[in-house]
């Protein structure tokens, strides 16, 4: 009844090709964006529930946005192009540390050649984007083996990237500007004169990044390149035989994915953490991103958001609910429970609905089209 498509005719191909061809979807999206861009900052500014304290904004919404962005990146590689990656944490790190170096000035003395390469500190926006670009270049390098090796073997290559870069950012002090403790601080977030500091400002900054990237990646994914990626994923031999070049498709997947993940890494370090160490981007992070994508839905931009939300909310629920019932659990038990629930959920989803929650949601929408009629 609410979700009827009747009467909505698409008269041109461009209407048919829109991201949200059904009017109800567009309305829902407009409401969501309204809440996100206007509602949340307003409520937070006046400390109205649920933004009574900074906690919800600072510790939940902010990491949610950035991790959702990273999940979009991982989804492009794993969900759309079918190339498994266990090294996304490393690419976040590359984005973060490159942005850091570019934001604080790069100085490479080449004494043997008689001169030095010296770049002054770049504006923050540029550093973040160039950080992403660096990650993209490295991503392409590690994507080259994917032409010859597939599936599990590729997973090992990405693990090699993960562990190698863990080591690089830990041991090569140049990246941390020779900080004795190994942890670094983000440069001031100065965007064309506006300094981003308060939680609301950080939230809005990330929201803008995420919205822009979501639109750009969605465009890519429903166009020619997206189809090429999915063709490679589904049957790469057939894809080659209809004229798709596996080299181009796979490397662009690695490049775009790593770019997005790198930018997310830079945002994670600069905007969320403020000060960080290499551990923030370890294999746990890679697995976490992989889980978000599997649970949320492989091959779905919206799914990346759902997965990120789920992974972030679950530990909080596990903490809150037993406490509400008067049976607080120790942090250890909570961690163990998290493990068991995550693991079970992954197995369950893989068995019942490999396309994750996103598919469950679109199935729900299909049911909604008929509601309240049974068929």
């Amino acid at each position, binding site marked *: 009844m609410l979700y009827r498509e009747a009467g909505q005719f698409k008269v041109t*191909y461009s209407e048919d090709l829109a991201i949200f061809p059904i009017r109800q979807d567009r309305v829902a999206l407009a409401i969501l964006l309204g809440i996100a861009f206007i509602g949340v900052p307003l409520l937070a500014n006046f400390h109205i529930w649920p933004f009574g304290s900074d906690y919800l904004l600072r510790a939940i919404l902010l990491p949610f946005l950035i991790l959702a962005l990273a999940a979009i990146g991982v989804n492009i590689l794993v969900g759309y192009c079918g190339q498994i990656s266990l090294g996304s944490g490393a690419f976040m790190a590359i984005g973060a540390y490159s942005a850091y170096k570019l934001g604080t000035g790069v100085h490479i003395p080449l004494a043997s050649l008689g001169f030095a390469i010296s770049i002054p500190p770049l504006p923050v926006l540029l550093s973040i984007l160039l950080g992403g670009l660096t990650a993209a270049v490295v991503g392409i390098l590690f994507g080259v083996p994917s032409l010859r090796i597939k599936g599990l073997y590729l997973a090992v290559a990405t693990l090699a990237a993960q562990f190698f870069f863990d080591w690089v950012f830990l041991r090569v002090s140049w990246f941390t500007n020779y900080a004795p403790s190994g942890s670094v601080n983000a440069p001031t977030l100065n965007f064309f004169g506006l300094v981003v500091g308060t939680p609301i400002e950080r939230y809005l900054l990330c929201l803008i990044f995420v919205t822009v990237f979501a639109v750009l990646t969605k*465009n890519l994914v429903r166009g*020619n390149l997206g*189809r090429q990626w*999915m*063709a490679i*994923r589904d*049957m790469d031999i057939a894809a*080659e035989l*209809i004229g798709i070049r596996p080299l181009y498709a796979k490397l662009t997947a690695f490049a775009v994915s790593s770019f997005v993940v790198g930018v997310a890494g830079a945002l994670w370090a600069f905007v969320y953490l403020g000060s960080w160490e290499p551990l923030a981007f370890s294999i746990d992070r890679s697995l976490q991103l992989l889980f978000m994508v599997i649970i949320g839905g492989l091959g779905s931009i919206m799914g990346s958001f759902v997965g990120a939300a789920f992974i972030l909310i679950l530990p909080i629920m596990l903490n809150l609910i037993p406490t509400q019932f008067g049976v607080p659990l120790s942090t250890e038990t909570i961690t163990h429970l998290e493990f068991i629930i995550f693991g079970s959920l992954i197995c369950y989803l893989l068995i019942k609905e490999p396309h994750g929650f996103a598919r469950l949601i679109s199935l729900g929408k299909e049911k909604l089209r008929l509601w309240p009629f049974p068929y």
Partner: protein
Amino acid sequence: MRAPGTNEILLQVEGVSLVFGGVRALTDVSFDIRKGEIRAIIGPNGAGKTSMLNVINGFYHPNHGAITFKGQTRARMQPFEASRGGIARTFQNVALFKGMSALDNIMAGCALKMRRGLLWQMLRYGPALAEEIEHRHRVEEIIDFLEIEAIRRVPVARLPYGLQKRVELGRALAMEPDLLLLDEPMAGMNLEEKEDMSRFIIDVNDHYGTTIALIEHDMAVVMDLSHRVAVLDHGVKIADGTPDEVKKNDAVIDAYLGVAR
């Protein structure tokens, strides 16, 4: 019964031999395919028919011999070069992209022709969208032609086998090929589906002028559809000519029915 073509030669197979380990898949096979004709390649199971298509396609590289396509002779060709050159094909076990809808599968066939790069596609509005719509027009014509409008948005994994084969044909047509290789397009179909598919194949040949090379087991279909037939048995060509000639050929009869000893 269709008259043999007298046009120029589009594809020439010369002395092709293919050996896998101990298996001689093809031994010194030569034949040609003329422009605008429907050429059937038949033979008992294991004769090497699919291997022959794979060689023409560039998927297998022959140990000896060469293929000349549109005047260019190559001993080794990459599948990518074959597609770029104008050769499209369908497969015995339907090779559709199971994660995509019928429409997307056919649009994937246009990938060869779509030029707009990464950055334009990210932006979408502007040149990339215009290109997408232009190709969508073409694909819709193919969908119309194959009478699959109702199932465009259905994920192909959910389609019945006969419709999947049709979508695969559509995807091959989207490549606007000069030569279309069909590997057992009627396999597993009932009479009605076979009639539909035959009609489509003839229409493709008439309407688009596409040259077709076809592997098929159903003799009635082969006799009705093709201009000329080549017969393979154990990797060797044993007959070549019009359907009538081939039907009466002793070697062919022996190969299919077995020789009484």
